[in-house]
């Protein structure tokens, strides 16, 4: 599998639309086109192998299931993951003749996607840095009372930043990277230490993504319990995710009622003490019910 200039250019265009400061808006750009699962579909269509693209997208998405960017700091760049990493992973998997749905192929995609995504965060900072030029234009426009030009500052000029740091890097890296990935196949045998390590890391990388998410939802150690219950339902009882979601709705309903009951009965007492001890209250009140 190779990537032609035209295919590389289309990938470059999608990279402009989806990066963290994205030209297609935050919801459609970053949160839709930029997600590796959607990127897998798009890359699959562009490169003409949808099942392989989806398989790579699914594998890589797991690593980045929670891509929170607090305060505009990024640990990984979605444009690089979805539109450089996934196409290269697709080439690597097909050049090594792996079954796209095997865990080997998935681990390959995870390792490659994560590597490219991490290095690619440079692109995010480069675009944000170049946007300072257009913002300087914007301050001048306000000073000179040419307010209509602010639309151009927000929607027009940033395309130039993306041309330099999204379009061109994506186009060049997917076109030439595809050849490099194929050449690498002969250099690194599958049963050598480097490849074994690469695939082992690939299997473990999603744990980092899940851990980032846990950092968001776990405040006290009891917050681990819903997570472990969900894990047990799938690992031991082999329920699928829709079933787990439905079971979790019941627990959510119970917790909501308890918390609202507590808020009502404590009406008048200070709100801060209620909120501070709410997790303990929940455990006690659950026994009463």
């Amino acid at each position, binding site marked *: 599998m190779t990537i032609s200039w035209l295919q590389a250019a289309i990938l470059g265009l999608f990279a402009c639309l989806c990066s963290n*400061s994205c030209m*297609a*808006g*935050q919801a459609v*750009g970053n949160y*839709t086109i930029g997600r590796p*699962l*959607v990127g897998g*579909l798009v890359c*699959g269509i562009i490169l003409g192998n949808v099942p392989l693209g*989806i*398989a790579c*997208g*699914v594998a890589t998405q*797991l690593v980045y*299931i929670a891509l*929170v960017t*607090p*305060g505009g700091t990024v640990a990984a760049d979605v444009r690089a993951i979805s539109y450089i990493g996934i196409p290269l992973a697709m080439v690597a998997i097909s050049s090594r003749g792996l079954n796209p*749905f095997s865990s080997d192929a998935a681990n390959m995609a995870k390792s490659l996607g994560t590597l490219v995504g991490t290095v690619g965060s440079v692109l995010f900072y480069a675009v*944000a*840095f170049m*946007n300072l030029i257009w*913002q300087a234009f914007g301050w001048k426009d*306000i000073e000179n*009372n040419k*307010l*209509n030009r602010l639309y151009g*500052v*927000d*929607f027009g000029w*940033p395309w130039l930043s993306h041309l330099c740091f999204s379009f061109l890097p994506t186009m060049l890296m997917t076109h030439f990277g595809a050849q490099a990935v194929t050449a690498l196949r002969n250099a690194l045998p599958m049963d050598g*230490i480097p490849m074994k*390590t690469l*695939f*082992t890391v690939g*299997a*473990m990388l*999603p*744990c*980092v993504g*899940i851990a980032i*998410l*846990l950092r*968001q*939802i*776990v405040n006290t150690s009891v917050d681990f319990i*819903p*997570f472990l*219950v*969900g*894990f047990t339902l*799938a*690992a031991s009882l082999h329920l699928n*995710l829709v079933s*787990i*979601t439905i079971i*979790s709705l019941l*627990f959510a309903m119970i*917790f909501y009622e308890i918390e609202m009951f507590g808020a009502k009965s404590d009406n008048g007492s200070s709100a801060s003490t209620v909120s501070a001890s709410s997790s303990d209250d929940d455990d006690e009140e659950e026994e009463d019910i």
Partner: protein
Amino acid sequence: MDASNEKKISKKTLNKSFNLWFWGALTCFSQEHMQTFGYLASMLPIIKELYPDKDEQQKNIHAYTAFFNTNPMLGSVIIGTTASMEEARANGKGIDGETINDMRAGLMGPIAGIGDSLIDGTLIPILLGLALGMSQNGSPVGAIFYIVVWDLIAYFGQRFLYFRGYKLGDKAVSILIGKQGKAIRHAISIIGGMVVGGVLASWVNVTTSLELKDATGKVFLNLQKQLDSIFPGLLTVVVTLLCWWLMAKKHVSAIWTMIILIGVALLGVLVGFFNPGLKY
């Protein structure tokens, strides 16, 4: 403008302002000003309608030149709120640029915190978790499901928040950070926790290949089988909790956590603990 001489922002202008935010909150992003220009662009139609005089426009847009950054999804409630405050300012109801700015600066932090944990940390992982299940075996159904459901929620949700903010002013925010909002967030975090646990168990599988053999070559200890008999997927949970511990308790960055995992993997491969069993 009308008989009572009260200025009112037209529905069309509010729509335009909302769409500018929806599509442009992050387009001209920089580390220094972040979403400031997205904010300026979305307030511009409102400023232009409320103040026909060009110098007035220039004077009043200055209220929005201060630094702004929040979660862009939930943040639309702040834009809607400032739209209603700007309207009050134009009608001389004792609101000045300073009041608007204080409100904005005070809200962007809490809204960012709630939005990041609720949307990025819970809603999107749930949708993606469901979508991943549907896209097993290379089917595009899951990806399409995510595109349709997420974008409908994002567009109409943000639209709802924007117009809620406009209608209720700063009261709108109390819905999000009040008692009911807190109960809803707690309930949703339960769903999030369980689904994420399910995602981990269904999709991630860290296994060991360690086997101990006796003199005749018979396997007397298969570690993976032993671990599975204690708790299926134990190793996966252990690796995840290790990553969580490194990042949450030891303040190791995500990138360094990944590098540590590479070290663990290399060591494991060398001693035979990990072996993906690759071949052509």
